[in-house]
């Protein structure tokens, strides 16, 4: 964030970053050639409106040179799968562009037709972060489009899963039609019932009342048949599955109301209760619409394919390189893997210098040094320089996908009935008892009154009250959780989270974040020695050297002579007359039977071994308080795929009474959760990697922690942003509060019901009373639940928010 004191001239005109190297063009300053190139492009096509507001909306293109990188898109097998539609003159493609962040992005992306003649139209959806491009396949192709987008800084996010046909996301909720029809009819029925309410029939025309009643009947038909159909369908599905769900009570109530009204109107004995019936359908549909909020740009159902990249760089026998789509790879192909790229298939390492980070796959937190000729498994990330490797097994047959496809990972999540369902069912039974009871009570005295009581009890006191409480509370809670950067898959998760009693945490990536911390083991280093080490380290591009240089950047760099970097071993040089060597244990200390961490950087000064630097992932901020709070109410345990070198550090935070298991395989994690559940516990699992997938599936509620929501996160019920980890106890508390709110509002609705029931059991419920009670109780419930949810949010999270501001 630039503040006003920063000299505006020092900031890149395109992307707003501070300029380390100054690139001047057209009297404007840019931070790199990439930004300058984008500016040139926009200027040539008169798209400089992009820069209008004076801000720097540009996204810095990270790659200046795309040669060959998108070649795989020329392959028709690949491009056909990516296209939504293809004909001779028109093709439609949808890309995910997570870099979209402002109105300038929308402007530029919708003017792509100016930059590429083949584009007919491009339309963005900002909330979903997608762009839909209509183009002429005869004039341009997918590769040109992707290259154009990448040049502008908006490289599409493509992974292996996109090669499966993309599901057409239904963005528009059909329920809106039903709500519109129900609302229209409800309002008109009430209006036409006014004479009935106020007994304005002294104008003599008894036929007027009859006309109005028939009109009401006519208006009620679409409500019953069209708007209310979803309740009947769900109720029927429940009956077929031999379960009486809450929609059954609702469907029963609607049916009875309608039948009773039809009888009254046709026989001319009364006006019916059609206003209550259409009103309740209207309010219920609004509640359901409100509750079913979806997070469009997040995917909660991931399989291993969304983890892998869509293409890989291949080195052909003649030495040239081109990119090929992953499914087209054959065993024996030579893959070229750059730094920070994923290994897509089990392969044999052909170069030295492979440092593979398996943290996502196995949970090991430090990268492993792989030597030439050894196997690298799919899913690992290369943290060293460029290496080549030879593919040994197909992607779908790698160790990783084998793990994934084991039956244990494809569990059907069987959820227990939520407490709302149980409560609703009990309530329906009670009502049925009450209505039948009052029927038999009145039968000997006045059978007409008996029938009256039978039906009106069910009309006035349907389980709608409970349903409304649940839908509006859950709808409000979904939005509140999103605001707190926890994205729930659906509202039913709230109940699961509220009822857990045991919390299981993964270590790597969940308790730790991406930031590295560096420790030195050995003889104490003085400032002079640190300066020497810093000067040497900054000469190399190796990630470990860079990490070291970053931490020591307070030193003033000296010049280095005779610098030499040996891949897979280390670096050496002469600084101020001192000879320094830094690198792997094998190279510096010479012994081959080394048991310690692989990413240790040993330091030797003038032939004397000083010690080694160790890189560790930092624990997330606030973790002590979080664990302390959680331990008060829940049993906590830690499962890690990593080694137990950090056990003592974790014990100081968790306490010695917390169970910690290390070296856990993904299968072992799942078994652990299962064994807890067999003992009757409800388990909440928090993890982040593929090695947690099984456990996340098996647990009663699974939360996936991520530092970048666009990255892969395994199949889970909720996604929590890593920065918000401190809010975890508040979130669990909020889920429990939502249960309380539902119960409280149900009690309120019971009070309304009692008033109505007191009329109904006497057989004296008039349409007017029903028509007043129903919207009154509905609106009260809506206001109560929504208001109380937001108050709970402010009370629970406001304190946390203040403390983060203070700390910042």
């Amino acid at each position, binding site marked *: 964030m630039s503040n006003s004191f920063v000299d505006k001239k020092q900031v890149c005109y395109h992307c707003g970053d501070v300029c380390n190297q100054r690139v001047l063009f057209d009297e404007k300053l840019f931070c790199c050639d990439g930004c300058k190139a984008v500016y040139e492009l926009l200027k040539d096509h008169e798209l400089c409106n992009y820069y209008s507001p004076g801000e720097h909306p540009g996204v810095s293109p990270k790659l200046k040179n795309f040669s060959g990188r998108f070649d795989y898109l020329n392959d028709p097998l690949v491009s056909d799968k990516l296209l939504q539609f293809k004909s001779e003159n028109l093709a439609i493609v949808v890309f995910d562009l997570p870099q979209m962040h402002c*109105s300038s992005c929308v402007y530029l992306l919708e003017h792509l037709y100016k930059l590429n003649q083949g584009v007919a139209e491009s339309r963005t959806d900002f909330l979903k972060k997608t762009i839909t491009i209509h183009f002429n396949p005869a004039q341009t192709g997918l590769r040109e489009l992707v290259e154009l987008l990448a040049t502008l800084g908006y490289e599409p996010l493509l992974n292996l899963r996109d090669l499966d046909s993309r599901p057409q996301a239904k963005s528009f909720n059909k329920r809106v039609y039903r709500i*519109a029809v129900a609302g*229209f009819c409800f309002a008109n029925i009430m209006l036409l019932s006014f004479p009935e309410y106020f007994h304005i029939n002294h104008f003599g025309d008894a036929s007027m009342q009859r*006309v109005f009643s028939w009109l009401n009947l006519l208006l009620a038909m679409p409500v019953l048949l069209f708007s209310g159909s979803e309740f009947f369908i769900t109720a029927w599905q429940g009956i077929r599955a031999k379960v009486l769900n809450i929609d059954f009570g609702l469907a029963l109530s609607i049916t009875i109301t309608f039948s009773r009204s039809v009888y009254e109107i046709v026989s001319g004995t009364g006006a019916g209760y059609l206003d209550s019936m259409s009103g309740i359908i209207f309010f219920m549909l609004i509640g359901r619409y409100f509750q079913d909020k979806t997070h469009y740009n997040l995917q909660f159902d991931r399989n291993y394919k969304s983890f892998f990249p869509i293409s890989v760089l291949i080195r052909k026998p003649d030495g040239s390189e081109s990119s090929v789509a992953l499914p087209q790879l054959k065993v024996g192909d030579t893959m070229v893997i750059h730094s920070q790229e994923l290994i897509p298939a089990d392969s044999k390492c052909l170069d030295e210098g492979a440092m593979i980070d398996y943290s996502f796959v196995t949970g090991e937190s430090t990268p492993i040094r792989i030597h030439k000729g050894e196997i690298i498994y799919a899913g690992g990330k290369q943290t060293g320089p460029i290496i080549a490797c030879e593919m040994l097994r197909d992607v779908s047959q790698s160790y990783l996908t084998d793990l994934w496809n084991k039956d244990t990972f494809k569990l059907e999540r069987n959820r227990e009935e939520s407490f709302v369902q149980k409560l609703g069912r009990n309530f329906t039974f009670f009502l049925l008892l009450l209505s039948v009871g009052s029927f038999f009570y009145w039968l000997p005295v006045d059978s007409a009154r008996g029938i009256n009581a039978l039906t009106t009890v069910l009309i006035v006191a349907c389980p709608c009250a409970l349903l409304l409480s649940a839908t509006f509370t859950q709808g409000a809670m979904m939005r509140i959780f999103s605001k707190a950067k926890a994205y729930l898959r659906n509202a039913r998760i709230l109940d699961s989270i509220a009822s857990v009693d045991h919390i299981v945490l993964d270590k790597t990536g969940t308790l730790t974040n991406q930031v590295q911390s560096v420790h030195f083991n050995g003889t104490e280093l003085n400032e002079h020695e640190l300066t020497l080490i810093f000067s040497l380290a900054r000469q190399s591009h190796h990630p470990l050297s860079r990490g070291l240089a970053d931490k020591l950047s307070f030193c003033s760099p000296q010049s280095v002579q005779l610098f030499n970097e040996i891949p897979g071993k280390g670096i050496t040089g002469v600084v101020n007359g001192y000879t320094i060597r830094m690198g792997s244990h094998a190279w510096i200390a010479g012994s081959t039977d080394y048991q310690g961490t692989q990413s240790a950087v040993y330091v030797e000064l003038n032939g004397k071994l000083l010690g080694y630097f160790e890189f560790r992932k930092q624990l997330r901020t606030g973790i002590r308080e979080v664990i302390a709070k959680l331990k008060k109410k829940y049993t906590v345990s830690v499962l890690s795929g990593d080694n137990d070198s950090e056990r003592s550090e974790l014990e100081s935070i968790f306490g010695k009474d917390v169970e910690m298991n290390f070296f856990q395989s993904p299968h072992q994690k799942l078994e652990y959760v299962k064994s807890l559940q067999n003992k009757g516990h409800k388990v909440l699992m928090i993890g982040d990697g593929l090695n947690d997938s099984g456990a996340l599936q098996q647990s009663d509620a699974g939360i996936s922690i991520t530092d970048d929501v666009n990255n892969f996160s395994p199949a889970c019920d909720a996604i929590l942003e890593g920065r918000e980890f401190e809010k975890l106890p508040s979130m669990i508390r909020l889920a429990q509060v939502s249960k309380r709110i539902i119960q409280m509002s149900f009690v309120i609705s019971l009070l309304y019901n009692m008033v109505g029931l007191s009329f109904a059991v006497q057989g004296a419920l008039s349409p007017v009373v029903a028509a007043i009670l129903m919207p009154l109780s509905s609106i009260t419930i809506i206001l109560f639940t929504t208001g109380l949810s937001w108050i709970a949010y402010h009370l629970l999270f406001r304190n946390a928010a203040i403390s983060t501001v203070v700390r910042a």
Partner: protein
Amino acid sequence: MSAIYVLIGVSIPIAAAFLIAFLWSAKSGQYDDDYTPSLRMLRDDEVKQDQTDNQTEKS
């Protein structure tokens, strides 16, 4: 009071026509994305040759 029959007989069809208009406009898809238009309108399209481009493009 027969006037009321006429009134109701006319007003309900008119109201129904509005309902149909709403349903039809919702079906056309313009409400699918209700956020992006708010960003789109922050930019003016350039005048002159851009206008003719827009007219042919929006067909």
